[in-house]
C-alpha cells in the first residue's frame, strides 16, 4: 500500500519530483475515503435494520431525548435570539438608506425560518451534542463497555446508537422552531425597541412574505441535519481509536464532519426545496 509518509524525492536536475509521492498520497486518500464511506454505509444499514426490526429498549429513547433535546433548548434559544438581533443590526442601515426599514421584518424572518434557524440549531446540536455523543461512545469503546454490552447479548447499535439517532432526528425540528421563534423575537425586539421600527408594519410585511412553505422548508432541512448529526457522531464514537487522543479525535471529527455535511446538505436540500417553492409559488417572493 502506498503511504502518505512518502517524501518527494529530489530529481537529478535539482527539481523536486512530486509525481510518485502525489500519486501515492492520492491513492492512499482514495483508499481511506472508500473505506470510510463503505463503513459508514454499513453502519447506516445496521441502524436502519435495528430501528425497524426491534422496539427500543425501555427508557433509552427518553434518556437520549432529554440529553439531546431538552438540555439543548437554552443554548439554541439564546443563540437564536442573538442571531435575530444581529440580522436587525446588519439590515437596518441598508433598509434605512432606502427608507424601507418597516420591511425589515420580512427579510429577517424569512432568513431565519428558511436558513439560519435550521442551520444554527443544527450547528449548536453538532457542537453540544454531537461531539459529546462521540466522546461518550468513544470512551465506552476504549473502556470495553461496548464489548461488555455485546457480551451480555445486548446489541450496542440497538441499545446505544438507535435511540441517539432517533432523538437527534425527531427533536431537531423542535429545536429549529425554538431557534426560529427566539430569532424572530430578538429581531423584532431590537428593531422595535432600539431602532424604533413600527411593530404593526414589521409583522404585516413579515406575514405577507413569509409563507408556511418557508417554515416547512426549514423543518425539512432540519430533519436531514438531525439524522446526519446523529449518524456521524455515533459512527465516529463507535469507531474511536484507543486512548484519550483517540476519543478526542473522534469528538473533533464528529463535529467537523457533521458541520461540513450540514452545509453541503443545506445547499443540496435548499436547491431541491427552492424548485418545489417555485412550483407552488411561481411568482416567487417580491419584497419591493
Amino acid at each position: 500500500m502506498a503511504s502518505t509518509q512518502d517524501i518527494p524525492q529530489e530529481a537529478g536536475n535539482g527539481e523536486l519530483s512530486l509525481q510518485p509521492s502525489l500519486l501515492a498520497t492520492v491513492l492512499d486518500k482514495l483508499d481511506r475515503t472508500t473505506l470510510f464511506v463503505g463503513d459508514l454505509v454499513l453502519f447506516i444499514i445496521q441502524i436502519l435494520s435495528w430501528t425497524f426490526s426491534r422496539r427500543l429498549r425501555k427508557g433509552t429513547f427518553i434518556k437520549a431525548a432529554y440529553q439531546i433535546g431538552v438540555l439543548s433548548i437554552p443554548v439554541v434559544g439564546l443563540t437564536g435570539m442573538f442571531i435575530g438581533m444581529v440580522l436587525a443590526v446588519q439590515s437596518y442601515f441598508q433598509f434605512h438608506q432606502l427608507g424601507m426599514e418597516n420591511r425589515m421584518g420580512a427579510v429577517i424572518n424569512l432568513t431565519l425560518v428558511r436558513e439560519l434557524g435550521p442551520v444554527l440549531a443544527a450547528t449548536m446540536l453538532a457542537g453540544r451534542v454531537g461531539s459529546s455523543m462521540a466522546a461518550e461512545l468513544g470512551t465506552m469503546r476504549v473502556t470495553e463497555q461496548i464489548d461488555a454490552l455485546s457480551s451480555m447479548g445486548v446489541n450496542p447499535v440497538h441499545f446505544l446508537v438507535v435511540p441517539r439517532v432517533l432523538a437527534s432526528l425527531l427533536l431537531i425540528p423542535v429545536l429549529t422552531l425554538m431557534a426560529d421563534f427566539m430569532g424572530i423575537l430578538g429581531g423584532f425586539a431590537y428593531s422595535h425597541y432600539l431602532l424604533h421600527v413600527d411593530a404593526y408594519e414589521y409583522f404585516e410585511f413579515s406575514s405577507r412574505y413569509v409563507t408556511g412553505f418557508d417554515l416547512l422548508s426549514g423543518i425539512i432541512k432540519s430533519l436531514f441535519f438531525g439524522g446526519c448529526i446523529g449518524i456521524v457522531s455515533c459512527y465516529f464514537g463507535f469507531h474511536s481509536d484507543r486512548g484519550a487522543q483517540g476519543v478526542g479525535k473522534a469528538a473533533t471529527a464528529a463535529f467537523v464532519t457533521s458541520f461540513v455535511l450540514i452545509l453541503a446538505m443545506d445547499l443540496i436540500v435548499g436547491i431541491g426545496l427552492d424548485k418545489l417553492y417555485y412550483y407552488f409559488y411561481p411568482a416567487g417572493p417580491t419584497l419591493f
Partner: protein
Amino acid sequence: MIDNTSVSHTDSEETFSQYLVETHNLNMRFGKKQVLRDLSVKIRHGQTVAIIGESGCGKTVFLKTLVGLLQPTSGFVLFDEQDLGTLNDRELSLLRSRTGFVFQQAALFDSLTVGENIAFPLRHAAASPSPSSMSDTDEVELVRSALREVGLPDSTLNQFPADLSGGMRKRVGLARALILQPELVLYDEPTTGLDPIVSDVINELIMRSRLKRRVTSILVTHDMKTARKVADRILMLYPLQRLKEHENQIIFDGPPSEIEHCGDVRVQQFIQGEAGNRLQELGLA
C-alpha cells in the same frame, strides 16, 4: 511441543458433547499482523482453564473470539456444538446470555450505579427473565445477594463505579457476570493491577463461583499464582513473531502441577519471570 490435533490434555476417549467450547484452526489477523495461528482447543464442561503468555501473544483476542466479540479471520468456534459463525444476531445474543465476561478494567457502565450495573443483565440481556416474571423486590434482592456474594456491602448499591477502588470494581464486574448464572465465565486478567491480598480475594471468588455452580471458566492472566491456584488446566500461548512457521502457538497445555516440570525454556522463562535474552534484544544489555 503439543500436536495441533491433540490440543487437549484430557482423555482422548471423551465424546464430542463433553466439550462446551471448541476452536478449530482459529486464525486472527489485524491488517498485516497475524495474532492467532491455527489454534485448536477443546474445553470441557466445568473445566477452569488459565491462558497465560506474555503481552501481545493474543490471549485476550482468543478470549473475545470465544463469544463472538471478535470474528476470526478463518477457522471456527463451537459453543455447545453451535458454530458461532453460522448464528444470526438474535441467536448470538441468546448464546452470549449464557456466558459472563469479566473485563480487565471491569467495564462497568459509568452512567449507572453499582446496583443498576449488576441488574443490567437481568433487565436487558437476551435470555434474561421476562419483566413480568420478576418483581422489583425480587430483582433488588437478587442484586443484593450477588453483591454480598462478592463481599461488598449493601451501601455500595447506590454508588457510581468512579467512586469505587479497582478491586471493588472488579468484584462488581464479577457479580454482574455471574448474576444470570452463566454456564461459561470468561475472565480477562482478573487480578491485574490489584494488590496481592485483593488478588487472592478475586481468586477465591472465582473458585467459589466454580464450586457453587460448576461453571466452566476461562481466564487470561499473567499472574502465575492465580493460574496455579484457580485453574485445573493451563494453556500457554507464545507470540507468533517469535515462532517459526511450523511451530504451534500453544507451547504448553496441561495441569498446573506439570508446568513446573515442563522442559521448554520459554515456559520456564515465563513462569520464573526472567528477562533472559530480552534485554539484549532491546539493546539494554
